[in-house]
Structures are given as C-alpha cells and as structure tokens.
C-alpha cells in the first residue's frame, strides 16, 4: 500500500478510508500523515507505507526506517504490535536468529562475566509490565521554530505489555563491583560505515537496578516484532525510548561514564528548562544532561484539527494521557480555547507506566466553531505546558493541543 497525502484524502472522501479513521475524513487541515504544523517538506515526503510485518504506518524516512503510528490506533488501550512505531538511527537492521542469539554480560565492574541464550534468559523469573514507549523526539515536527531531525508528529509512541526478566536479577548474577557506575547496552543493529558511531546507550546504575527495568522478549503476549527489538530489548518504564535498546546483545558494567556519541552528544536536554526528577549525574555537564523520564502529556485520539461533528447529537472527545510513572491525576478538557475547563472521565488504570484512556462527553453540541484542548496533570503535580519549552533537539514536547472543530 502506498498513498501520498493527497491520494489518501481523496480516498477518505470517497469512503475508502479505514473505518476507524472515520472522523478524519472531514479533516481540513490535519491529514492522515500528520498535523498540518509539520514542516511542509516533511508532509509532502510522508506516505502511508508498509514495512514487513506492519500495517501501513506513516513513513517519515525509509532508511534507516522511521515510521510512526497513525492516530486512529491510539484509540486502543494497547498499541497492536503490527501498528507499533519503528525507529532506527542507523541503517544496518539485523535479522536475528533467536536460536544462536546470545547476550553477553560483563565489563570492568562485573565480577563474573557470563552469557545467556534466549532459552536460559526465559528460564529466569519473568514479570510483565504495561508501559508507554515514546521516542524522545516525538512531536519534534511541531517545534516552532522547526529543528532538524526526524519530523515526528504525534505517533512515535505506543503502549504495550512487556514481559521479561528484571535486569537487576541478571546483573546480580554478574556480581557488581563496588565502583559500578553505569550499565552500557549495545544491540545488533549497526552503521553502514565503519566510522559512524554505533548506537550504544548507558543507564545510571540506580535505574538499571530499578525493579521495573526489564529485558523483554514479549510484547502484548507475542514475541517482539523484528522491527521492535526481536528477540530481546531493554524496557525502562517511564524513561524515553532512546534507552530501550533493541536487539540487545551486550550489557557492560562500567566504573566510569560511557563516552560514546549517543550518550555524550545526542539525547541531551538543556539544564534548568524541564522539571527533571530522574537525574543521570555521571553524564551531566555544566549546560546539559541526558534526557531521562517522560514529561506528563496527553493526546486527543478521535479528532484532528479541522474535524466536523454533527450538531444536536451526543459526541465525545477521547484521548490518552501518560507520564513517567507518577500516574495521571486528572485530564481537563476545554472546548472554548482554554477559557473554561472541565474534567474528563478517566478510564481503567492499566498501571502507572501505561497510558490512561479518558473520555469527555459533549451532550447536544450546538452548531459553531470550537477550539478543543486537553490538559493532563499527574500525581506529582506536573501539568502540560501551554507554550513550547523550546530546545534545539526538539525533545519533551508536551504542549496542550488546540484543535479547531466545527459542529454543524
């Protein structure tokens, strides 16, 4: 399947669009490949296209593959594996043979290096945890001014049930020396050129030992999809997906800060701009620090900017809200551009690292133009921002959406 934006809008108008995207057919400004505020070149270059094992996703770049989940799938509590977003930094995408896959655990601050096969890993006590996996740069394309990078709309994220073994159990077997400081992960994906820095990430020891940090081999009850980390990926609930190493093959315990490009230069946020709770002290500099936990955020999932709702009928605004694990306390919705707010009804609590679905009833909507907004707050007291906290890499965009919706 291969549609560009214009063809898909045409298809929508003639009733060919997915049933779940019904309300999108009316969209005047946003489209199925993203919000209208994305850079024009990004919208023009985006198409719905299929990767192996995936439904058509929004293609931002072919190689390395960066594909985001279309909005309609966010109406589901758990994101289907075949609709889960795909994000790679480097174009060497591995086809891993699970039978011969091995995970090497070692490093200068590990007492007893050892290896695990997939069968051996699966014999360790398993846990399952629901958690949002969100790219640090989700919504980068909405940055004003625009900043270079993958121009993501809203869909570089998903919610899934991850099953695996606690990383702390694996590290305990390696025996941590007293000076253990960071845990370094490498995966089977790689660069085309010898000189390109391999994608390698580290975690502070305290986060690696958190009981929620796991090495997962299952996602929503199925083996991980090949493009989401098969056979094993790191899952760090609450933290942005940059640390969730896919196809992990190596875990090293270091006694000093890891200095590779993807830690030292990339995925850093300026100090003092965000309400940082989880610190990564061994990687901090005077001016910046690695991105760590996600900021509180929400997404309206059944409407896009430019949508039309039928007058005089009961309608709903639906969405999801999430944070880094404090849990969602409240979602407030405004239909008058922020002049007044009323609380939405929260859905089932699927766990503090999962997103929370919410609904807001619009009874007997009168004809007119409305500006619909949703604002989530968490139990730690943090709330989404109304104005972008600009930062050059385009991270942590949790600006409250403003959707123009017509009732007619």
């Amino acid at each position, binding site marked *: 399947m291969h549609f560009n934006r214009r063809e898909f809008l045409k298809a929508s108008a003639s009733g060919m669009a997915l049933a779940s995207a019904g309300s999108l057919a009316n969209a005047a400004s946003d489209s199925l490949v993203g919000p209208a505020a994305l850079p024009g070149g990004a919208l023009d270059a985006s198409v719905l296209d299929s990767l*192996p094992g995936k439904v058509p996703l929004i*293609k931002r*770049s072919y190689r390395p593959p960066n594909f985001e989940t279309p909005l309609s799938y966010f109406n589901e509590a758990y994101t289907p594996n075949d609709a889960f977003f795909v994000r790679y930094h480097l174009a060497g995408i591995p086809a891993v043979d699970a039978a011969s*896959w091995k995970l090497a655990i070692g490093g200068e601050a590990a007492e007893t290096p050892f290896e695990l096969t997939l069968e051996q890993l699966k014999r360790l006590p398993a846990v399952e945890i629901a958690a949002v996996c969100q790219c640090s740069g989700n919504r980068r394309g909405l940055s004003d001014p625009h900043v270079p990078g993958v121009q993501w709309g809203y869909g570089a994220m998903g919610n899934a049930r991850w099953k695996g073994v606690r990383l702390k159990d694996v590290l305990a077997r390696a025996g941590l020396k007293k000076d253990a400081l960071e845990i370094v992960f*490498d995966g089977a994906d790689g660069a085309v050129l010898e000189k390109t820095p391999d994608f390698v990430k580290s975690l502070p020891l305290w986060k690696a030992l958190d009981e929620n940090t796991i090495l997962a081999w299952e996602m929503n009850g199925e083996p991980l999809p090949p493009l989401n980390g098969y056979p094993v990926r790191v899952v760090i609930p609450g933290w942005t997906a940059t640390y969730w190493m896919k196809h992990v093959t190596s875990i090293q315990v270091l006694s000093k800060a890891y200095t590779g490009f993807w830690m030292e230069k990339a995925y850093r946020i300026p100090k003092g701009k965000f309400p940082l709770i989880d610190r990564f002290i061994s990687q901090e500099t005077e001016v910046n620090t690695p991105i760590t936990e996600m900021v509180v955020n929400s997404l309206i999932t059944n409407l896009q900017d430019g949508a039309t709702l039928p007058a005089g009928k009961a309608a709903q605004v639906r969405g999801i809200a999430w944070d880094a694990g404090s849990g969602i306390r409240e979602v407030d919705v405004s239909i008058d551009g922020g002049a007044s707010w009323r609380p939405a009804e929260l859905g089932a609590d699927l766990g503090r690292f999962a997103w929370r679905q919410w609904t807001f009833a619009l009874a007997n909507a009168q004809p007119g133009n409305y500006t619909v907004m949703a604002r989530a707050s968490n139990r730690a007291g943090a709330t989404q921002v109304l104005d972008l906290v600009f930062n050059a890499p385009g991270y942590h965009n949790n600006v409250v959406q403003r959707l123009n919706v017509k009732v007619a």
Partner: protein
Amino acid sequence: MTRWLLIGVLIALPALADESAVKLKDGDGREVVEKNCVACHSLDYIAMNSVFMDRKGWEASVAKMIKAMGAPIANEDMPVIVDYLTRNYGKP
C-alpha cells in the same frame, strides 16, 4: 561496531521498503548530493527537513554528517552539497 557484519548468526536484512520513489529536486549538484548521502540514508531525509533551514543550518547538518557520523565527503564536495541543499531545500 557493526557487529552484525562480523558475526555469522546476525545478518543484515535486505532493504525493508522500496525507497525508489524518493527523488531529489533537479538542480546543480544533485548528483554530488546523491553520491555522498545515499550510502547511509534514504534521500527523503532532505525533503523531510525542509523548508526551514538556511545556509547556516544546512552547513551545520552536512558538517555533522562528516564530523559526528564519519561521512567520507571530499572537501571539494562540501560547498556543492551545501549550495544544492540551500537552493532547493533551504529557507531564503
């Protein structure tokens, strides 16, 4: 390093998706851009990052590819690439 190249159990997948539909705008320097950039990434990265960077922005992007990503771009190709990107995908 590129572990998957070295170890027998891990092999690189062939191209996952057909990127042949991606075409750069016609213009002086297009072939030089294609020759230098396409080894590591599809050319849709260029259109995706438009139009909001001026010459300085594109210079910084190309410099990052050389310095951080190790792209073997010849000195004489650098201005040709920056000119092409600025003219065709740049903010005036």
